[in-house]
């Protein structure tokens, strides 16, 4: 399969690993930001291929994991209303809110439907004029453009029974929050390739300069990640701190102008609460004034609603790279994919789920 197989070749992977070992003279801590990268690392055993001096810290790049628990509660509230159809990507359906998850809401009679695209939700709204169709808009800058397109399409077609529950989060402010935190050990970043395919690399220039760390915009296959780490370690060993693009087949420095224009038209930057981390200024997107009529929180009277999160789950520390999933006392015991305590164990991109699913044995 093109664009997949060539980037999963194990012989090349070993050559990369040896190349990294050759240039590494001291310990380095590198954070990969995106959950998809974390999964690839754990699934393909990249961390085992690297020399011991390289420590990989798993970043907060799983939008499902960082969606505030209030928003999940709001989604459940909406789903349980007889007039509403709550459309969501599959990942969100098993993430625990403060009391239950969307899957349980569905079992209790809520109309929860899994869609692959927000445009499906708009189409559904057109087909079901007597129902309120709400799309749970979760994701980073990667999914924001298509969600913006869906809202714009609904506006153009006058589909008034469509609304969005916006949970979008932005990567750069979260990275800055982590890099300026007191426990920060991150010395280089493996930056998210798909976010940069949309947004370009300019936001990361500022991060590289301000924090003096190398930033390598990287893809998601094992060889991409190994090459990205190689480029990062090369910079570290030479005392450099600049932005480089490993994922050249997907990322242009200026990003995708059409996508960004759509996003800027439909969304505006706001402070957003990241689950497990807290409120991050400029950390999210909300509907711009011109489109605020499509906001589900306003339409369903759910704007003022907040929740104190249980302190048991350590997702927040995992998301900030402070602990690894297996260091959590509940990991694999009280917290497993069947009965997750937090989003990082449920989401397909969550670090805890990756560690649980792909756990390795030391064998020959």
């Amino acid at each position, binding site marked *: *399969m093109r664009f*997949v197989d060539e980037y*999963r070749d*194990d012989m090349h*992977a070993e050559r990369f690993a040896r190349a990294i070992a050759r240039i590494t003279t001291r310990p380095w801590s590198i954070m990969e930001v995106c959950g*998809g990268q974390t999964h690839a690392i754990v*699934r*393909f*055993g*990249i961390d*085992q*291929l690297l020399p011991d001096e390289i420590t990989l810290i798993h970043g907060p790049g799983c*939008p*499902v994991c960082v969606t505030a628990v209030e928003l999940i509660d709001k989604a459940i509230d909406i789903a349980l209303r007889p007039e509403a159809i709550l459309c969501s*990507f*599959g*990942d*969100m*359906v*098993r993430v625990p809110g403060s009391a239950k998850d969307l*899957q*349980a809401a*569905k*079992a*209790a009679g809520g109309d929860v439907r*899994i869609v*692959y695209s927000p445009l499906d939700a708009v189409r559904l709204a057109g087909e079901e004029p007597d129902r309120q169709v709400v799309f749970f808009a*979760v*994701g*980073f800058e*990667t*999914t924001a453009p298509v969600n913006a397109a869906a809202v714009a399409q609904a506006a153009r077609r006058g589909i008034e029974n469509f609304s969005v529950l916006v949970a979008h989060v932005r990567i750069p402010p979260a990275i800055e929050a982590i890099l300026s935190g007191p426990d920060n050990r991150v010395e280089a970043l493996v930056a998210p390739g*798909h976010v940069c395919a949309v947004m370009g690399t300019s936001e990361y220039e500022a991060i590289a300069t301000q924090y003096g760390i190398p930033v390598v915009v990287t893809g998601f296959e*094992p060889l991409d990640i190994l090459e990205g780490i190689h480029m990062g370690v090369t910079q570290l060993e030479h005392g450099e701190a600049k932005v480089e693009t490993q994922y050249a087949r997907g990322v242009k420095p200026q990003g995708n102008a059409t996508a960004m224009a759509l996003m800027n038209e439909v969304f505006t930057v706001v402070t957003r609460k990241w689950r497990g981390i807290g409120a991050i200024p400029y950390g999210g997107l909300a509907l711009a004034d011109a489109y605020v009529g499509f906001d589900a929180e306003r339409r369903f009277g759910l704007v003022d609603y907040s929740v104190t999160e249980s302190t048991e789950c350590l997702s927040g520390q995992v998301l900030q790279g402070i602990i690894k999933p*297996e260091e959590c006392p509940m990991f*694999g*015991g*009280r917290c*497993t*994919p*069947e*009965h997750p305590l937090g989003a990082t164990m449920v*989401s*397909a*991109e969550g670090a805890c789920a990756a*560690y*649980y*699913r*792909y*756990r*390795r*044995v*030391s*064998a*020959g």
Partner: protein
Amino acid sequence: MSPEAPPFTCPLPVQQYANVVLAHGAGGNLMHRLIDDVFVKVFANPDQEAEHDSAVLECDGVRFAFTTDSYVVHPLFFPGGDIGSLAVYGTVNDLAVSGARPLYLSAGFILEEGLPVETLHRVTQSMQAAAQRAGVTIVTGDTKVVERGKGDGLFINTAGIGMVPEGVSSLPAQVRPGDAVLLNGDVGRHGIAIMAAREGLAFETTIESDLAPLADLVAQLFDAGIEVHCLRDCTRGGLASALNEIAATAGAGITIDEKAIPVLEDVRGACELLGLDPLHVANEGRLVTFVAPGDADRALEVMRRHPLGADATVIGTVTERAAAPVLMKTFGGIRILDMLSGDQLPRIC
């Protein structure tokens, strides 16, 4: 994870859901938990051999296998089959992997008010054709009708009986370290075919279900005198679930090689797109066979002569119980291959 780490199964059975959720039907951990906690606890029969696809019973010196399955597939018609052929082959296969020659089926129908009779005709014709191909007869049945909205078009239950020949048995308990693990063909077709049909996903080529009756293939193996220890068909939960179930029941370990498992390019592409793992996707014409190591080559020969075993291959070996029931050699080393937990969820970003 450190070597002293606790085993990966949760010691406290946490009842997460007070109500049944869809994931309870997915063939993974959640479903097994439900079956154990609710059904096995009450119905368990101490005289019966540990769970396998059919119950093998003895009466007056005659051994027969008895099984049942309900079919709620949606859509009713999909590339490669329909609910009718599925209802026949699915039950036939459960009998076959218990070592039985399938003979008779019952067919119970739950019809939703409003179902076109024309649809029922199509399904029935399909069932008869499938029964003939599988060499079984549908001898009894039942029909019920429920109000519109109370049943999704059509549900079918089939129960089946078959005779187990003298000297033949297929049981997880017979699986031993050293046994070869064989697979009769590529995996993941059925689940992807259904998903594509249900969600209206169009791929460049239509992926067809692998739905097929396996009784004849199994009979060939026993007739050739192959020392078969156990068979299991890989349905819901995919190859991974089947292997985990056998390993857990047998108290053994299984190590497989990811590179040895055949997957069609189209299926792999669809799985990549949707974020699914072919090893967890449902099949309806695939089985794993555990044979004595000395018989592996002969077993492959026999299977490859049969149309449903043309791509048969050895995918692994049985070992002593290790860190986990099923281990898989893969890129970067060896990892644990777990059962699904709940439903496979497609990617979000």
